[in-house]
């Protein structure tokens, strides 16, 4: 009887794993099958043409812009905020409140951020529908992610490192910079990877703040279209599933590429510090 239970349970476990992998394979497979024959050099590096047959280079450029700008702003602010909360602030009610707030922020639907961005950055600050407005909105979206993951990473740094360093007559800043941050680096990096995923995957908030102009952006203040927004629009307007799937392939490859390189970097860092 106990043996039987064991078999059943093992079967259920297997089934769950199989199901989740199958769903992933199906989605990726479907997108690849549908979109693969559209993928060509011309498609990726060609300029967009509204009459069809053009490429998606402007959207790729816009997507990369938004990633870079929002990370450049969000990463330092997020890491510094986490350092303050974890290493400097007196652990009391205020810090708890701030932590609760950042946690809640990660759960807010991105369309809300989009609405805020549209009102605040686009209208009040008169940035107009632009890459910069979208990037700032994305900054707000990923900031809590970076703060949370950095805090978790700092928590995993053994207290004995802090004591060991401070007992050698170093200042708190030296200890942070030379011992704590390097040890927390892999965790912080994984937070940044997560953020890139959020940025690339975001569509609603960008739609509301960057607009939909399908051309190579002239400056940070031009309206532009990211890959996800493009994918949404072609499906919505012309029902061109194949084109949307092809865009999907490009997105998947970009994210995969970023993840792999980030993993390699963090492995390198680990080796440099541990070996």
């Amino acid at each position, binding site marked *: 009887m106990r043996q039987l239970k064991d078999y059943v349970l093992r079967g259920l476990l297997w089934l769950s794993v199989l199901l989740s992998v199958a769903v992933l394979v199906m989605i990726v497979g479907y997108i690849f099958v549908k979109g693969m024959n559209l993928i060509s050099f011309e498609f990726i590096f060609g300029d967009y043409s509204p009459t069809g047959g053009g490429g998606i280079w402007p959207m790729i450029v816009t997507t990369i812009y938004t990633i870079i700008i929002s990370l450049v702003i969000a990463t330092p602010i997020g890491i510094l905020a986490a350092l303050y909360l974890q290493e400097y602030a*007196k652990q009391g009610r205020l810090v708890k409140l701030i932590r609760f707030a950042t946690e809640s922020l990660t759960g807010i639907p991105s369309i809300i951020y989009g609405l805020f961005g549209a009102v605040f950055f686009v209208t009040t600050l008169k940035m107009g529908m632009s890459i910069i407005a979208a990037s700032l909105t994305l900054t707000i979206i990923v900031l809590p992610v970076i703060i949370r993951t950095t805090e978790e990473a700092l928590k995993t740094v*053994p207290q004995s490192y802090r004591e060991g360093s*401070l007992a050698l007559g170093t200042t708190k800043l030296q200890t942070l910079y030379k011992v704590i941050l390097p040890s927390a680096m892999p965790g912080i990096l994984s937070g940044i990877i997560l953020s890139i995923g959020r940025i690339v995957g975001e569509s609603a908030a960008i739609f509301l703040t960057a607009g939909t102009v399908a051309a190579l952006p002239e400056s940070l203040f031009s309206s532009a279209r990211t890959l996800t927004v493009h994918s949404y629009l072609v499906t919505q307007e012309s029902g061109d599933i194949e084109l949307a799937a092809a865009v999907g392939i490009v997105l998947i490859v970009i994210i995969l590429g970023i993840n792999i390189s980030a993993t390699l970097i963090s492995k390198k860092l680990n080796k440099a510090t541990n070996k």
Partner: protein
Amino acid sequence: MSTAVMERSESLVMEENQTVKVQSQMEIKREEKASKITVKDLNLFYGEKQALYGVSLNIREKEVTALIGPSGCGKSTFLRTLNRMNDLIDGVKITGDIMIDRENVYKNNDVIKLRTKVGMVFQKPNLFPMSIYDNVAYGPRMQGIKNKKELNQIVEESLKGAAIWDEVKDRLKSSALGLSGGQQQRVCIARAIAMKPDVILMDEPTSALDPISTLKVEELITNMKKDYTIVIVTHNMQQAARISDKTAFFLNGEVVEFDDTDTIFSTPSDQRTEDYVTGRFG
């Protein structure tokens, strides 16, 4: 016995008394002169809870002073007041005085300077995830020493001072975390030595080590006392007996007895000390 003889013997006794007096005066004088750390009426509170009660100790220069006592008696807490490591804990309040080289540790706010002068070795080896070289050079580098030659020399001297040089000289650039626990602890000692401190505090430095490594660290401590004032917390009474000159017995946050190690282990004056060192509790 004739009166003459009696007088003679009396005067002898008197003479003897006098020499004893002179000797003890000299001893007191020497003790005062060589006193490195003077603790007077030290109380420590963790929030509401008092952890140390009126601790007064005189720790002499270039001797090993052992702090013994059962778990939670305050010996580690006391040790950490000497280099102000308790500052890291929120809500710690301290009254009383600690003088190191006649400077009041808690009135002088230069914690950095204090900690370069008073090094510390912890219970578990806590080397950083860096190379052996970088670990030992860490403190001097943070002091602003950049000259490669100077750093090389400091690292070599420190590792030699911690009796680990021969074991690691060919792998200075490899990770310190690849060493065995005993080796790591000796590199920790080297890291502390590299700051050229006067005093080294050790918080149960061998409690995580195997017997052979323990023996090596004990030998090292005995050799180090010619250069450093060492204060060591230990759970192991045999260890205290083997390596220390003076022993302080802590119980419930108080110093019950503080005397020569031999006295503490052979003829303690307090019943509780005797009960503890003979293993009746603790």
